[in-house]
């Protein structure tokens, strides 16, 4: 016990003596939490729209002004011909082109039917897809407005019509920050936890101090606990800082109990630190440790359900996400922050992450040899 206390004292001394690392640990999450949620925005705005209006009628002008008034589109060019319009897309001056053919108004009034054409630059698939549906929705509304103007609708609709009203539960205003910010917080905790432990131990290998420790009677368990506990405490501090930023900057107060989040975070950190420890037992240099953890982080982040929905992944990818600790914490933190879930609801997740913590740490301890 005395040995462990002394190991901890030494570890904390070293951490506090390296102010650059300490600063990084705390400044990195602040900057990322301030920046990323604004940038990782799913709402597409400011779509550059070019309109080729060959009709020059009252209706075509009305349609264009309705589109630009929506706030999603910016009129960027008014090319005269179809050919010129495609050039505009090619030069990246417009994301979409709307063609209004000559005789649009005439056809609409006489035939009750008029074609329109939309061309979209689909290099950025998300932007193209969303732009298309926004534009179609506006045109549909425009269509209904005209109908209402031309046809005197009967009091009761003779045709069967379905009308849907959407109500968004748990996030009524579809505020994407509410689910992005907690998710980003999880990633930060993962990176701080896994990277710091891995690099710290590998550094002792590189400098040779670990060899000096290995010839002493220090027990393996004490040495490893001496590494885990300080970084566990640092991780909890970083996490608390993140929650405070979420509250102050984004006004996010968890609907559920913060205690529930902390219980999960405590176990989650053990799992992540175990991963860092495991990496350190395999890596011989800091570069190796960095590369391995970078590789894992990419997979964890992109397959963790933060940026893309896991439900829309193929089956094999879904299988992989089940082995990704990040997935579980992101689900849990969203459940607690948005829905107010309690310990009872996250029990399953807690069990899984405990198993992760157990396996990763046991593996690391078994693989750490005091001699080769």
């Amino acid at each position, binding site marked *: 016990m005395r040995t462990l206390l002394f190991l901890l004292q030494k570890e904390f*001394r070293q951490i506090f003596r390296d102010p650059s690392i300490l600063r990084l640990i705390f400044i990195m999450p602040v900057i990322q939490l301030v920046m990323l949620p604004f940038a990782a925005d799913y709402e597409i705005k400011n779509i550059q729209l070019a309109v080729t209006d060959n009709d020059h009628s009252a209706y075509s002008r009305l349609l264009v002004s309705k589109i630009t008034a929506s706030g999603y589109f910016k009129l960027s060019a008014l090319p005269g011909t179809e050919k010129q319009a495609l050039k505009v897309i090619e030069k990246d001056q417009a994301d979409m082109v709307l063609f209004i053919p000559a005789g649009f108004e005439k056809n609409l009034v006489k035939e009750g039917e008029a074609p329109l054409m939309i061309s979209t630059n689909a290099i950025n698939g998300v932007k193209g897809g969303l732009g298309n549906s926004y534009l179609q929705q506006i045109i549909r509304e425009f269509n209904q407005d005209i109908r209402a103007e031309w046809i005197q609708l009967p009091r009761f609709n003779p045709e069967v019509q379905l009308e849907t009203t959407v109500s968004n539960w748990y996030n009524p205003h579809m505020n994407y920050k509410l689910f992005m910010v907690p998710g980003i917080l999880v990633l930060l905790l993962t990176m701080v936890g896994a990277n710091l432990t891995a690099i710290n131990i590998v550094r002792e290998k590189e400098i040779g101090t670990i060899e*000096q420790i290995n*010839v002493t*009677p220090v027990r393996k368990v004490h040495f490893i606990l001496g590494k885990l506990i300080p970084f566990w405490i640092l991780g909890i501090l970083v996490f608390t800082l993140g929650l405070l930023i979420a509250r102050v900057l984004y006004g996010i107060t968890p609907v559920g109990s913060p205690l529930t989040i902390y219980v999960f975070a405590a176990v989650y950190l053990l799992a992540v630190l175990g991963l860092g420890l495991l990496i350190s037992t395999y890596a011989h240099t800091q570069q190796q440790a960095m590369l391995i953890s970078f590789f894992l982080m990419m997979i964890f982040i992109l397959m963790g359900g933060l940026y893309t929905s896991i439900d829309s992944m193929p089956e094999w990818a879904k299988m992989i996400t089940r082995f990704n600790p990040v997935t579980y914490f992101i689900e849990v933190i969203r459940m607690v922050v948005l829905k107010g879930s309690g310990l009872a609801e996250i029990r399953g997740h807690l069990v899984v992450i405990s198993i992760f913590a157990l396996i990763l740490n046991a593996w690391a301890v078994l693989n750490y040899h005091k001699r080769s």
Partner: protein
Amino acid sequence: MGNGGVKLKRKMYAVSVNNIAKSYGAKKNVTPALHGISFDVKPGELFGLIGPDGAGKTTLFRILTTLLLPDKGTASVDGFDVVNAYKSIRRRVGYMPGRFSLYQDLTVKENLDFFATIFNTSIEKNYDLVKDIYAQIEPFSNRMAGKLSGGMKQKLALSCALIHRPSVLFLDEPTTGVDAVSRKEFWEMLKRLKAEGITILVSTPYMDEAGMCDRVALIQSGRLLEMDTPSAIIRDFSKKLLALKGPDMLTLLQAIRSHKDVADAYPFGEFHHVVLEQDDESGLLGYLQDNGIAFEAKMAVPDIEDCFIQLMKEER
């Protein structure tokens, strides 16, 4: 030798090495480091392991300090087997690796405190043992270990290796990269530690340090070439040794080497040392005069370096 014999031998010697072999690498790319080495070190002895870089000194030390498992053979330190009783060994040996490997971001005092504590002791308890060495760096006890000079780092490392009063001390190339004055001081310190009854194994690539040891073993390419007291090794030098110098040392050396009576010739300080095949040097001296090379010659008393150079030449 039966089991009882091995046990007896272990009790008698502070370090006992029997046919230890170790190779690095796997399958097709095996690099042998030690080929079945055996030797014994008596308690309280100052034992030197002399050999060039890559001879296997560090590998041997790492096996004896339980950091590395041998492929073959057995070894014991202070009566404990290095493979089975490694825990007991770790409590009673001090190891100073060739590379400075203390915590550079801890102070001198903190490093010493740290190593005292993990051995369950304190600086105060064993202060008398490290006093002579530690007193020299004590004025800097609040300085970071990384900011010490080379000689001071070495003293700190030795203090840390000694703070738990080990019975056997392993020093891996402690004087490499240390200036001549500090080297001399260091050997003085070792003599004082020896007086405390600590068995010391020291490795070094410098042959001139061999004379400071009670016994030395010459190691090359993983094999022991010779093991004896320095004076006995010098006594065994049977050939005649000449020292020659002249105004043009290079031409002189080339001329000496071209003569058939010469077994070996090499620069040695301001002279060339010449080992003769037979006792009569007149053939060589006459040959040099005939070729018009100016020189002066005298008989030389072989020292330990001459012996090692011969031993290493013979082995090759």
